[in-house]
């Protein structure tokens, strides 16, 4: 599957804190448009905003300017999938930042599946799936 080709929702935004809130609302609306119950909408928003916050805080720490977050979402049968990609330096341990990574277990518990990987731009890709529970 090429996510970019089949995504029903795709938006790119600067990797700055202001983008996180806006995209969090947008992915919530996407989930709601597929009939997701309130609890699921909250789960999608929580996990997605955690992934985006990771990108904002950590992905561009070695760059003079923040890069880009790409948020893709779609539906696959009884699941909603969400991809958060950045074009940063990858998720690497930083001695100066003990917070890096602590949100990942939360995302693991919130999503029905979570996979981390390298994005096409060389940054980080967070792929999440949520079983669709309709309200």
């Amino acid at each position, binding site marked *: 599957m090429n996510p970019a080709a089949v995504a029903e929702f795709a938006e790119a935004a600067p990797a700055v804190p202001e983008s996180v809130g806006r995209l969090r609302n947008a992915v919530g609306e996407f989930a709601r448009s597929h009939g997701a119950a309130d609890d699921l909408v909250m789960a999608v928003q929580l996990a997605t905003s955690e992934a985006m916050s990771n990108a904002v805080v950590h992905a561009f720490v070695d760059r003079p300017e923040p890069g880009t977050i790409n948020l893709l979402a779609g539906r696959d049968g009884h699941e909603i999938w969400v991809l958060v990609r950045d074009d940063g330096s*990858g*998720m*690497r*341990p930083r001695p100066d930042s003990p917070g890096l990574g602590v949100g990942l*277990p*939360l995302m693991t518990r919130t999503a029905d599946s979570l*996979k*981390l*990987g390298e994005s096409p731009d060389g940054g980080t890709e967070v792929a999440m799936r949520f079983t669709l529970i309709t309200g």
Partner: protein
Amino acid sequence: MASFARVTPAEPGLYGTPGEVDAEVAVVRAIYEAFSRRDVEGMLQHVADDCVVDLPGTYERAGRTEPYRGPGGVRDYFADAARVWDDLSLEAEDIRAASDGVVVFGHIEGRRQDEVIRRRVIWLWQLRAGKAVRVTANDMGELA
């Protein structure tokens, strides 16, 4: 003979985490150390009966399509790793605690016939009552 793991001393991150995380980090560290000794029984002491071991780098090369499950699955993993790899090391470089689990940044180096891999990996561990219930390895790209 395959070597399984090497643990680089690292202090757990303590950012915003409750006190019991030290114990969870110790459990995960003990599991990596058990790997390094090729000590299946030692690892099983820290693994829940319903544990899911999602390590696709080995199970896919072993011809499997699903993660390992339970104590039998852990034994299968050790057997597969020894059979599939001529040499395999898992290096845990940075172990970080969170309220819902443990995150391990590291890398693997493996050799199998003509195939040599060096990949950055993030392992995500979930624990319950002091035992691992799930580990997932995430391939983060080529090790520089």
